[in-house]
């Protein structure tokens, strides 16, 4: 049984402020668990290899590739997905700055931007670049995303 990786356990995940019971195999990624068991589809699978950032979520406020995290490693930790960020000004800014085309990369960028604004609101261009390089967008050419991220950071520092 265990050899085949087919035994399952029931565990609790803390997502967007709520606790949820999920049934997982030890090999299940957090990405698949969020999507298939909790219906939180905002995190996308686009490479499942840590290369694109479409699956970005926050664990303890830190951006993580949920395709590289196992569900079993994530129990007892606060998890935030795009669905937990309702009506944040980041989302509005991405819309206003025209930073969205097909939208497939958008949740990942927004969560990464959220974490950056929380951790380093005074980030320089270099730091912004370093953070955002973990996410790929194939539609926009990054210019509008860059403007959106900078606007978000500015709003954050003005508030502090």
């Amino acid at each position: 049984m265990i050899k085949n990786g087919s035994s399952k356990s029931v565990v609790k995940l803390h997502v967007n402020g709520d606790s949820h019971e999920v049934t997982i195999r030890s090999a299940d990624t957090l990405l698949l668990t969020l999507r298939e068991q909790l219906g939180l589809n905002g995190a996308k699978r686009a490479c499942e290899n840590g290369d694109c950032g479409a699956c970005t979520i926050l664990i303890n406020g830190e951006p993580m590739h949920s395709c590289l995290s196992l569900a079993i490693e994530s129990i007892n930790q606060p998890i935030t997905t795009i669905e937990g960020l309702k009506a944040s000004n980041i989302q509005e800014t991405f819309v206003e700055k025209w930073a969205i085309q097909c939208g497939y990369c958008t949740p990942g960028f927004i969560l990464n931007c959220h974490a950056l604004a929380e951790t380093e609101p005074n980030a320089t261009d270099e730091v912004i670049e370093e953070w955002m390089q973990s996410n790929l967008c194939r539609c926009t050419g990054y210019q509008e995303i860059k403007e959106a991220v900078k606007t978000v950071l500015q709003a954050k520092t003005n508030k502090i």
Partner: protein
Amino acid sequence: MQDRTGTAVGKPIQRIDAVEKAAGTVRYIDDYTLPGLAHAKLVKSSYAHAKINSIDSTEAWKVPGVRAIITGKMFPYHIGPILADRPPLAIEKVRYYGEPVAIVVADHEHQAKRAAALVKVDYEPLQVVNSVRDAFQTGAPLVHENSGQYMKIISNVYPVQGTNIGSHIKIRKGDFIKTWEACTTKVKETYSFNLSDHVALETRSTRVEIKSSGKVIIHTTTQSPFTIKKVMNQFFNIELGNIIVHTTIVGGAFGGKGTVQLEPLAYLASKAIGGKMVKLNYEREEDLITAPCHIGVEATISLGTNKDGKIIAGQYTFLIDSGAYTDQAAGITRAMALDCTGPYNVPNVWCDSYCMYTNHPYATSFRGYAHPELTFAVERTMDQLAKKLSIDPIELRKMNTIQPGDTSPTQSVITANNIGDTLKCLERARELIQWDEGQRLEISNNKIRAKGISTFWKTSTTATNAQSGAILKFEADGSVNLNCAAIELGQGTKTILAQIIAERLKLEMNKIHITMEVNSSYDPHQWRTVASSTTFLAGRAVLAACDDAISQLKRTASIALKCSKEDLEVGGGRVYLKPNPDYGVQIKDIALGYQYPNGHAVEGQVVGHGKYIQRHLTPMDKETGFGKPGPWWSVGTQAIEVEWDTRDYTYKILKAVTVLDGGTIINPATATQQMRGGMYLGLSFASSEAFLFDEGGIVQNPQLRTYQIIRFGEQPVEYLVDFIESPAADGPYGARGIGEYGVIGMAGALANSLSAAAQVELNHLPLIPELIWKTKKEHLK
């Protein structure tokens, strides 16, 4: 052309899909699941060219949850959009690394995946055709032994039996041979690049189920739901009416989702388990190499001028690496020929465009459909010609620009109505890139700034009967719903259509409801969402539907208002008397018919419908290319400024400029988005993308870690976009297509700027620093 009322067309109205996308609540195909859904995984070829001796699935069957294992025996026939040359699952032999050989269907995805890894295929390796050059040699090993027998699905495809030529398209205009002798200045250069990929962020995904009634229900990531119907009907013998294709918002496509590849596989998988719903979702590696990719090219161009620098003769030879199958590459071969000169008047043209079979992953359409690739070669040649003539590159282009009264390579007559204003584009781009401050500036000991320019054109080579339809249904509150099978791929097409409706009906945008989903049995026929043709085709259909609705509204209102229809006008949510606008009726009160005070009712719901079909397009003559393959040409000029480091040959892209004449711009904000995104895609392709093959034809970089696309921070420091709006007589409010155009000139402009910077001719892609270094070293020898 329609008169603008100023309500919505030309305004930067926010995209109607953006808010939900930002919330992360939009559902793409892969976001749906349901209990009992079965999963399919592919067994893929580990060789580029090999005979299949046997397939042993004994071990795979031992994995729990496995329900079916299918091989090519289940469907030993060939399919294809232009030439039917591809078995959905390999039969007898494999022709590329990553080709589907078998499908495993299981209860869970992880079971299917594990079982797929346990299917043992015994291969006998065959000699690999690893480049278009090799493929073209006489005596080369054959990728297809019987290409002459394949069924032709559309005209203008000419495979040559006993060779690796999947199609050969010719252009013979004027007398090239004689004129070439008379040319006073000549250049001849060769260009090349490998196959690459679209890399839409959403990988392809599909779900298929076969109902006991015989209905086949397909949910899929596609640009072409009606082509899927056609293919399933043509090759699988399913009645058209029984095939229902659904698609939702698509997570980027760039041409890669325009052809039919995984749907037939999922159909076979579902069939094998009694019609239960099966999902087939491509992993990134499969999306890169198993699914169709972007062509490679080797092009040779010769241009000859008279003593004034006027181009009088051009010869163009294109070897297109279409990989193992022709798919859309056969159409791309044709598109590259019919626009081969670029937007220049070349009276004597000799062009041979070959679609070559190799043992590489097979190619399909890529944003620009032959034009980014063609333009790279043409625009490099123009710069090298300018150098030889000692003429400024912009001046040379201006002297040779194609003008109304000239003819295209296929001898279509150019008129002021069917082409944009190339000269204006060139002039505006010259200003934006600040060309006159100098093409090459040494700004410090080791930094050089250089500029490159590129001019381009493209016609949309749709099917000659490409069409679109639209239905407008009014609600009891006076708002309106649009049914139209144009697909939202990220380009903003649904917002554009809503703007056209708002403009025509003089209605507010929030009164127009657009569903992003497309359902092939509810929505009218739409050729495809490709070829920058949707604003044009669907836009015209939507306008016709508006006009139909307006006449119905007027008719019902004339009853309510007891007056003649001719005296009425529609606008602002009302129908009113022209001479006395205060006297009228609200649309909401007649949207479902008019009710007399005594309860009697007449007319019923206002349902407008409209359609549009391409006019007077013709296929091309086999020997000369003569014909009218597209409705109009959008033209543009792009420019790049780079800062190049003389020490390590790295460079930074400072400025990227696009000036496009796409006719009237319906939404300047989404149009700018499209241009920037296109520029990015073109620059990424030109600067860093290519599949790398080992000597056995195995792709060495089938992951986003090793297949490099431009990341955040590597994009141009500045994107400058401007539009010249010479209206197209036929287009909705004068609009032509723009979707692909941002890509087209980028490779040419980047290569021209770097060639100027490094003072060598860079004629191959991708333009990685190592290539510049190598070329420079060769040059110094």
